[in-house]
C-alpha cells in the first residue's frame, strides 16, 4: 500500500521568515489545546488542509466559527500575517508506521517555503518530573535555533539527556519531529510541560504564556489574559448538559 499525502493550499502567499508551530499529540493534548488557543485568539486564517494516511481521519465543520460551513479535518495550516506565525494544527494521533515519511514531508514542505524555524509544543507525563519544585516546562533546541540567547536570558530549564537521542515520555511524535528537523538543518525548538490527563485547558493557557515570553506574539500594553480568546468548540469539552429526565 502506498502512502498518500495531499496538500491543498487555499493561500499561496509568501510565508518566508515565519515561525511554524506544530503541536505533538501527547499526554493531555496540551500542545494541541495551546495551538487552538493561538488560532482562536489571533483569528488565524486557514491556508491549507492536509490529507494523509499517517493521520487517523477526523472530520467536522470549522471548530472556531459555529456559523461556518467549511470542513475541518485532521491536519490544517493556519496563518497570522501580522505576527509572522503559522500553526499546523493536528487533531488526531499519527499512525506510528506512517509517521516518519509524513513528518519528513512536513519539514521539507515548509523548508521549501523558507519558514524561519519550527516550534514543537508537547507535554510529558507529570510522574516523569524529577525536580518537583522547579518549573513544569522544559525545552530542547537544536544548534540552528536562533533564539538560544533569549532562552538563556529567560532562564528556561533545559531537558536532561540521559542516553543517546531525545526521549520525552508521553510526548508523542515530538522527539521524532525534532530529529527530522535537525537532519534537514531546520532550526527547531521543543517546548514541553509536565502534566496529567484531565482538564488540560489551564496547561494550554500556561503554555501560551510561556511561549509568549520568547516569541513577540502579544501586545505588551495589554494584559495577556485579556488577549486570549477560547475557541467556541471548547464549550462542550466535558460533554453536554445533564438530561432533563433526571429532574
Amino acid at each position, binding site marked *: 500500500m502506498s502512502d498518500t499525502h495531499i496538500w491543498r493550499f487555499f493561500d499561496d502567499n509568501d510565508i518566508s521568515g515565519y515561525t511554524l508551530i506544530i503541536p505533538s499529540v501527547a499526554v493531555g493534548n496540551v500542545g494541541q489545546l495551546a495551538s487552538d488557543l493561538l488560532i482562536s485568539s489571533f483569528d488565524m486564517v486557514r491556508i491549507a488542509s492536509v490529507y494523509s494516511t499517517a493521520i487517523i481521519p477526523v472530520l*467536522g465543520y470549522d471548530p472556531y466559527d459555529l456559523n461556518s460551513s467549511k470542513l475541518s479535518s485532521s491536519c490544517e495550516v493556519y496563518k497570522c500575517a501580522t505576527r509572522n506565525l503559522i500553526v499546523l494544527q493536528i487533531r488526531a494521533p499519527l499512525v506510528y508506521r506512517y509517521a516518519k515519511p509524513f513528518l519528513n514531508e512536513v519539514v521539507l514542505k515548509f523548508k521549501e517555503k523558507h519558514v524561519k524555524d519550527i516550534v514543537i509544543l508537547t507535554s510529558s507525563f507529570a510522574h516523569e518530573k524529577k525536580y518537583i519544585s522547579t518549573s513544569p516546562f522544559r525545552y530542547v533546541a537544536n544548534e540552528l535555533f536562533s533564539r538560544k540567547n533569549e532562552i538563556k536570558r529567560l532562564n528556561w530549564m533545559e531537558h536532561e539527556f540521559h542516553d543517546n537521542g531525545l526521549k520525552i515520555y508521553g510526548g508523542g511524535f515530538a522527539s521524532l519531529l525534532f530529529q527530522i528537523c535537525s537532519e534537514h538543518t531546520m532550526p527547531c525548538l521543543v517546548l514541553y510541560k509536565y502534566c496529567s490527563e484531565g482538564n488540560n485547558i489551564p496547561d494550554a493557557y500556561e503554555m501560551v504564556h510561556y511561549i509568549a515570553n520568547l516569541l513577540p506574539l502579544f501586545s505588551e500594553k495589554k494584559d495577556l489574559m485579556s488577549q486570549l480568546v477560547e475557541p467556541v468548540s471548547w464549550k462542550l469539552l466535558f460533554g453536554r448538559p445533564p438530561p432533563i429526565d433526571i429532574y
Partner: protein
Amino acid sequence: MATYGEIVEPLSRTAWEDWDDVTSEDKHNRLECPDQAAVPDIIESLILLEGKYLYDCMKNEIKNLTLIYTIKEIDLNVYQNQQSNVCISILRDYDILRSSEIVELLKPYITVSKNVVTIQTKPLTEYQSLELTNKNCLIRTICSTKASNLEINFPKLQQPNFISGVSAGAICLRDHLDLPGTAVICYTEHPEDYQIEEIQTLLKKLKVISHVNTGPSNVLNSNLYI
C-alpha cells in the same frame, strides 16, 4: 483494578499507539487488496456502511448483490449492484488505527465513483449540544465543499461534533480531490432494537436495499415463543 501506586492510563487513551514503546510498529500486517478486486469503470455511487446496525440491515440484501472482494481481517466486504452501478462497502467493526489504511484500500472506488455517501450510527450520548432534546434519534450530515446531486436533506452536524474513522477519511479524501461526498451520521439511543425509518428510506433511495423494513428487529420479531 489498579494496585496502589500503579499508573494507569485513562481508558480513552488505550486505543492509541504507545509512542514510547517502539515495538508497536509490528502490531498489524499491512492491508493488501485481493488480486481479483477489479474496480468497475463506472460507479454511480459508492455507499460506505459502518457499524453493526447497518451490517444487520444488509444481511437480507446481500444475496441480490455481487461480491467484489472481502477482507476478513478487518470485516470489510465490497459489493456491487450491477443493475444500478452502485458499489456498497460494509465495515462491521475495525481498529480505528487502521482507518486511513482502509480508506487507502478503498481509494480506487472512492476516486472513480461519481458520488460517495457514508452512513454510520453512533450512540446518542456522544452527540454534543447545548440544546436539550428528548428525541431518541438525530440524523446529521457532513458534506464536502463540492455539492452532491443526491438529495440528502438532513441538518448539518453542529460543532464541536465530528466523526472519525473510515467515513471521515473517505469524505475528507473526496474533499481534497474536489469531488462531492456526504457523511450521514445517525445518533440513536438503541440502534439494535428497532429500524430507523429515515435510514431505511435513505438506503432505498440510494438503491442499496430493495424495500423499507420499519418493523421492530428485537425479540418480538424473532422466532422465540413468548
